[in-house]
């Protein structure tokens, strides 16, 4: 199995540069290795990837414990912006960083669209 990393990077870069208020995005393996990333300069991609995997895995486990069913996304709302994690395929999860100015509804739709696109490349 070979992954078209170039294509993935291209999709992420386009997403980050054309979607309002998106500051970064990362596609990561479930065990926390970066597949493709476009992140703010000060962020370490290895660390961001590992953290993404930790949060999603623990979040899914907590979702189960609290009988919330299949976890659609993990939403982190901080003073300085949003971090949104979703499962993309069995082999990849997707992280988006957005500023506080982002409209949540629009952002969710954009994420849905980009995840579909990434899936088709990963398939």
């Amino acid at each position, binding site marked *: 199995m070979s992954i078209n990393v170039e294509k993935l990077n291209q999709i992420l870069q386009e997403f980050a540069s054309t979607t309002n208020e998106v500051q970064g995005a990362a596609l990561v393996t479930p*065990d*926390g*290795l970066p597949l493709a990333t476009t992140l703010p300069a000060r962020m370490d991609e290895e*660390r961001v990837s*590992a953290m993404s*995997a*930790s949060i999603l*895995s623990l979040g899914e486990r907590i979702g189960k414990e609290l009988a919330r069913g299949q976890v659609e996304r993990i939403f982190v709302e901080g003073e300085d912006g949003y971090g949104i994690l979703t499962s993309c395929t069995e082999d990849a999860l997707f992280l988006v960083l957005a500023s506080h100015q982002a409209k949540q509804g629009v952002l969710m739709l954009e994420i849905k669209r980009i995840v579909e696109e990434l899936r088709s490349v990963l398939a």
Partner: protein
Amino acid sequence: MELMRLVVTGPVGSGKSTFIQSVSEIDVVNTDERASDETKEQKETTTVAMDFGKLRFSPEFAMHLYGTPGQQRFDFMWDLLIRKAHAYILLVAANQPKQFRYARRILNFMNQRVTLPMLIGITHTDCDEAWETQDIAIALGFSAQKHPPLKIVNPLDHTSVAETLLTLAQQLYEPANHQT
């Protein structure tokens, strides 16, 4: 009631998740995901956040067990878990000499942050090419005379794990005997 928070750490595949699985009285919180790094040559899945289990020794004494991930990229979890711990165990697989130096790095990471009762659990001693305990102590950078308590443990065996936990608990309550 006394509650002891114990962290189980060590390199990939040393048996941290298995150790906690063997003694926990509750359904273990497990965050194993499919491995895509070099771990996959050893086993299919790997811990990406933590394991969590509970064990009650008596009405007055319970342990909460936290297993760390093994890979360095998850060292923020090492940091997070060790800061709340009362004691910790470093598991080292006797048949994985390539990991000894890395195991020592984990030990240093912990000791830079906390001073706690600890012991080194030597696993996989039943496997081919397993090193002797004393040789492992030296490979980890200790002298033959002065090293933290070393104990052979089989993470797959409930009794062996329980004994190891008891040894550590005793150390916690008789700090005079504890040396690192």
